[in-house]
Structures are given as structure tokens and as C-alpha cells.
């Protein structure tokens, strides 16, 4: 009985040692992986930070005002003024679609206009 216990204990020690060895290396791999991920996130964060700074720089009010001035012909942008506010009542109702003409009536003036057309 005692011998069996000794053998069992020795086997347990070997097993646990093997498990601890494996765990140790798994942990080290995980830590290395985390470190890699951290540096990756850090780099991404730096990139993001740079992009945010660039975005803010390109959207600075001075530059936008200058661009609005430069492209006034095309865009016609003005500072927001009180007149820009409207009321719901100022919006027209949608124009009903024109029904297709199924029965056209020929008018003498139509041909007349065509003849007089200098082009």
C-alpha cells in the first residue's frame, strides 16, 4: 500500500511539474502576444491621433472660411444668418405630376411657330 502511495505521489509530482512547465510557457506566449497587441494598439492609437489632428487642422475655421470664399462661385456658401431660418408654411406643397396627354389636339399655331422659327 505504502509503495503504491509513493509511486502515485511521484507520478503526481511529475504530472504537476509537466503541467506547470506547460502553463509557464503558455503564459509567456500570452504575455508576448499581449505585448505585441499593445504595441499594435499603441501604433494604431498614434495613427488615429495623427489623423484626428490632421482632420482638426484641415477643418480649422480659418481654412474653411477661406475655402468657402474661394469656391463661392460654385457653392455660394455664406455664414449662417437669421434669414436662413424658415417656417414650415413657407414650403410649397409637392406639385402634382402632369398627367400624360393621351389625346393631343393639333393647333394651327403649332405649325405656324415651326415655320417662323429662324433656326
Amino acid at each position, binding site marked *: 500500500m505504502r509503495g503504491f502511495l509513493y509511486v502515485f505521489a511521484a507520478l503526481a509530482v511529475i504530472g504537476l511539474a509537466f503541467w506547470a512547465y506547460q502553463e509557464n510557457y503558455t503564459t509567456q506566449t500570452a504575455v508576448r502576444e*499581449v505585448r505585441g497587441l499593445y504595441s499594435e494598439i499603441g501604433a494604431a492609437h498614434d495613427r488615429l*491621433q495623427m489623423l*484626428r*489632428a490632421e*482632420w482638426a487642422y484641415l*477643418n480649422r*475655421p480659418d481654412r474653411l472660411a477661406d475655402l468657402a470664399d474661394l469656391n463661392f462661385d460654385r457653392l455660394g456658401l455664406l455664414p449662417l444668418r437669421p434669414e436662413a*431660418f424658415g*417656417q414650415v408654411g413657407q414650403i410649397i406643397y409637392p406639385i402634382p405630376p402632369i398627367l400624360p396627354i393621351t389625346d393631343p389636339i393639333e393647333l394651327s399655331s403649332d405649325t405656324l411657330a415651326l415655320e417662323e422659327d429662324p433656326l
Partner: protein
Amino acid sequence: MRTPLRPLARILKAREKGENPDVIEAENRARRHAAEQDKARSRAEGRLLLLGLMFFCAFIVIGGRMGTLASSVPEEPRAAAEGNPIIGQRADIVDRNGRLLATNLDTFSLYAHPRQMVDPARTATQLAAIFPEMDADRLLADFTGERRFLWLRRQMSPEQMQAVHDIGSPGLLFGPREMRLYPNGSLAAHILGGARYGREGVSSAEVIGVAGVERQFDTFLRDPANEGAPLQLSIDLSVQAATEQVLAGGMALMNAKGATAVLMDIHSGEIIAMASLPDFDPNSRPQVATTGDQSDSPLFNRAVQGVYELGSVFKLFTIAQAMELGLVNANTMIDTTSPLTWGRFRIRDFRNYGPQNSVTNVIVKSSNVGTARIAIQIGAERQRDFLGQLGLLRATSVEMIEAPTGAPLLPRNWSEISTMTISYGHGLSSSPLHLAAAYAAMVNGGTAVQPTLLPNPNPQPGPRVISEAVSRSMVSMLRDTVTEGTASMGDVAGYEVGGKTGTADKPRAAGGGYYPDKVISTFAAVFPASDPQYVLITTLDEPVETSGTEPRRTAGWTAVPVAAEIIRRTAPLLGLRPQMDMGEPVGVTLTSN
């Protein structure tokens, strides 16, 4: 094998000889004791040895660990680190909508190890070609001298870095740096302040705030426990930009040497925009002026640090207090015969407004004499208490490092004549920010307001200063001043602007009276009058409007049009809808069922 105590052979032999056999027993017993003692001692020695060995090992391990810790480079325990170990930078500053006001940029510094240089002369020439501020001869002297280490640049652009790379000298080295960047340039420069490098090393440098909120919140911005959470201010970027743009234009038009504007939410005390001109670029903050007047430096924040006698804008406080005390009401007639003589002093009005005027007209026409007469009824003690409640007697609590330097200048002896002059804004100097907070208290229903640069979404009403009824009549008097009084140019269609003008002569810097042709003109506006939301204080320093035949300096001609334009531009940005009279919609009957 165990020896018996009384071995039979020896006992028998002893008995034969007639000896005492007990002696044999005693002898054997003593021997056995000695043997047991020897055994115990050797076991104890063994144990001691083992214990000593264990202690020795433990000490060796601890000592060895201490040695390795002391000699190795410190390393963060990554696996056990809590929180986010990546964001170690100084936190960003954003406006109330989250738009960036200040951030960091990764860049590199340049330093040299002259001993490692192969060709110092060529390196010096090429460096001088890249960086215009460097001098080839001085660099060469440094490179060939005794020095082992030399800083060359704090920060540089990627293009410059590539050019330095291309020199290919092994003695030129780069160190990573974090650079504070203000992407909007001079926008809100006085609020942000600026930053500089603190302790510098090869591999890193600390960035510390110099002025403004950067300095005030330095600890917060550098605290890694925030995990990069930005500092949010109550400033609105687009409103601030519009304010600064209009103010700069107004300052140029009115030939003023300085200008400031403060736009504040009257309920929460949040500062939505605060501009002070001339301003500077915090990316390259100018040096502090060592000579001349500090208040002429672009670094000087007129809104917070500039304490001026602000003139007639103070009249509203006198009238409000008199009405709160029940001394007058809006229609009480006041003697306004000009001049009013008090001892050896004479108080005059801008022009004679007739022998009597109602309290409303005293405000609308801005009568010094009328206000002074009301102030006599109030008395010095009560006036001082009231102005104290409005926060006009101590520095503002705004979150800027400069705030304590903007402490008001009070008369040494608050005499009766001081009471009279203070009632119309002379003899007491305060900053435009003080005035903004005091006006906010006048028109928000009558509770005191603390100006703040931090968002305050759930404002708690401060201590009551005046009743709601008095506050309402203050708003209507301010509105009357714009519609029919001194601030007629301040009306902005749709926004029901109310306000009070103030034109104060500038006191001579050396003391002794006032300049005849230098004024501080101020317009304190509130809008919209039907439901007050914001106050706007606009102050111009030494303005003069020269479109007429003679130069005009009064606030009604200078500060008021500028303020009106600021309101016209900013009110839509603040989301205020203009109250336009569109007429009733035709053919629509509103019903409910």
C-alpha cells in the same frame, strides 16, 4: 543493541565479590543517558545546520533578486497592469461638441554625439543648410570641441528629419518627442494658454502647461488614470471662431487698439465664447514682454485680466438694487438736473436730459445724475454688499490660472462720492468677465452666477440676488435701451436684443485724472429679451469711429454695432430661432380635437 541496566553476568559476579550491584545499574544508566544526550545533540546540530542553510539560501535569493532589480532596467509588469497602458500622452482638450482644441503630435528631437562624428565639418555645413537658424561655424566649434553631447533641435518636421537622415552622420541621433499642437491656430488662444517642455531626456520629455487651462488643469491632463479622457470645455468652436472674426473686423473698423468679447449662458455661467484681441498663436507662444505695459502684450487676456472702469453698464446694478429695496419703481420720477454738485465734485450728463426723468428713462438715456441720486438713497454699505453678491468685489472663479490676477480694483475708502461714481461705473475697475457674470445674474431671474469654462449641463441656481419681478423689469429696461435709447444700433431683427452701453474715460496710467480722448466702450447685451438665454459683453479699447464729421467714441457708435454683428452671426449658431413676424398662414385653421 540495547544494553540491559542490570546485566545478569556482572550482577552475579559483583554479588560474588560482595559489591553493591546497584552501582552497576547506576553506571549503566549514566552511560545510557550520555548516549541519548549525544544523539539529541547531534540531531539538534543537524537541524541547526539545516535551518542555517535554509536561511543562507533565502538571504542569497533575496540578495540576488535585489541585485538584479537594482542593476536591470525597470519594466512595467505587463501581464498584471491594470487599465490601459498605451495612452500615456497628455490628454486632448476639446470644445463642448467634442471638436479638438489641443492635441499631441509625435515628432522627433535632434541631438548630437560629436565624438562619433566622422566628418564634423560636412555635418555642420549640411545641418546649417537644413535648419536656417543654425550657424555652420558655431556648430563646427561645438562638434570639434570638448562636448560629448549636444541638443540641436527640440522638434522638427518629417521632411527635415529625412534631410538629416540623408546627411548620414553617425553622430546625429533622434529622440522621440510629443509635441503639443493647437490645430486651430490662434483660436481661443488666451483660454488654452500654451505648453512647453519640462524635464527633457533623450528618450522622452514632459509637456507642461504654461498658461490658461493648460496650466490650470495640468495635473488632470497629465494624470494617466484618466486613460486619455479629454478635457472638455464649455467653449463652442464655431461660435468662438465667428466671435473672433467679427471682433477683429470691428476692432479694425473702429480703430481700437484692443477688443474683447464674452458670450455666456446666463443660467449655467458657461462661457460659450471668450475672445481677446490682439491674440497670439499658442503653437509658438511669444515671450512675455519684459518692458512696457503688460496689458499691450498679445499674451494679455483682456476678458479675464483686464480690469477697467466700465462706465454706464453699472447703472443697471444701481437701479436693480433700488427696485429690489423698494426705493423706486420703473416709473418713479428722478431729479436729473445736470450738473449735480456734491461737495467739490460735479457730476454731469453727456447732455442735459431735462429736470425729471422716470427710472426707465434714466437707464434708457443713461443719466449719470439720476443714477447718482438713486445711489445716495441706497448708501455705501448696501451698495457694497450688493456688488459683492454679484461677485464684483473679488477675482472670478473661472478655471484659468490667470483668474486671480483679474481682481477688481476697489476704492480704498468707500465714501459717499465713491458710492455715487460707482453707481455709474467709475471708481471701481472690473473685468468684462465679472460684468458678464453680474449681468447674467440680473437677467436670469435674479440668481448669482459663477462663470465657468467647464460644461455645466445641470445648473443649480445660485443664491438669490434680486427677485424675479425686478429681473423681468431689468430685461425690459435693457430692451427699451436698444429700441429707443443709446444702443439703437444694437437691434438684430428676430433676436430682441436688450442691452446697456457704457463709455468710460480711460484713467491716466501715471495717475491724475482721465485722458480727454481715450475711452473704453462697452456694450452689455442680453438676448433674446422675451426669454433671455445669453449675455454678450463687448468691450473696445480706445475706439474711434471716423465716418462722421467729427470722431465719435461713445459705445453706441462703436461697441454696439460690433456686438450686434456678433449676435447676428452667433445666435443662429447657438440654435436660436429668430422671432420673425411671418403673419398668419393663409387659409389654415388650427384646430384640435
